[in-house]
């Protein structure tokens, strides 16, 4: 069983890394890019015996309390059997 956690800066929080990446890909000739936002992605291997609900609750807690800073970031959790 595996959890995937995506952490992104909230909209409105400046992302200078995203801006620099956008600038670089535009220098390479890519066009039509409105915005680039950089985030973080975590893969967490879970005990196979957990049921889906338990797994989601514990990973949500992890994402809220450790993996993200709720002042500046949002998170999204996916559980895969």
């Amino acid at each position, binding site marked *: 069983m595996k959890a995937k956690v995506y952490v992104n800066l909230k909209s409105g929080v400046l992302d200078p*890394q995203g801006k620099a990446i956008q600038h670089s890909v535009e220098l390479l000739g890519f066009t039509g890019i409105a915005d680039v936002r950089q985030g973080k992605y975590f893969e967490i291997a879970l005990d196979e015996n957990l049921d889906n609900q338990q797994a989601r609750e514990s990973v949500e807690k992890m994402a809220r309390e450790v993996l993200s800073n709720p002042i500046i970031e949002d998170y999204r959790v996916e559980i895969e059997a």
Partner: protein
Amino acid sequence: MKFGVIVFPGSNCDHDAYHVISKHVGQPVDFIWHRETDLSTYDAVIIPGGFSYGDYLRAGALARFSPVMNSVKKFAESGRFVLGICNGFQILCEAGLLPGALIRNRDLHFICDHVYVRVETSDSPFTNEIQAGSVLRIPIAHAEGNYVCDDHTLDELKQEGRIVFRYCDKDGAITEAANPNGSRENIAGICNRERNVLGLMPHPERACEDLLGSSDGRDIFRSLAATLAAAV
């Protein structure tokens, strides 16, 4: 009065803080390893600069879970004094002892430079020996010093006079050009509502000797010492 300097794996300004307390403040000071939990003998603790836990995840994010931080929380709740410098400020924000967060500098660079900060209030245990409006020349050295907070928090900080330091030019004017990292409203340092916890990005402990380019930082430690002397 007794000071403690907390040491995390990756702290690197711990010796500077220790040096300033022992040499310039002239008071007893201990290093406190982050696994310690007993702070009962201290009157003030300094959370020094550096790269605790290698800045993994987010600057200050993992240090918050070190055993000593629960004790620091209780220490602060008991009204004793906590000074977080640079990474120490980041840790205090991550731990919820101060509001807001410190994100990547506006221009991405790690900035190591002398800057000017204006003391916004004398009404803090860390600035009571400094006249409000004074300009201090103090170095910064950080990549994540861009202070952000929501509008509500900003209003509270302003109304309660909790913005203690703001980046300014050498004459004390708060300008965008004098803002090194994009911090909201040029904020360089804030305190909590009870005013006994202060976090700031500049390094006053690196500005305590003329030989190092400035001794303006001493006023901050002198203020804290005066507060403690009056309290003890």
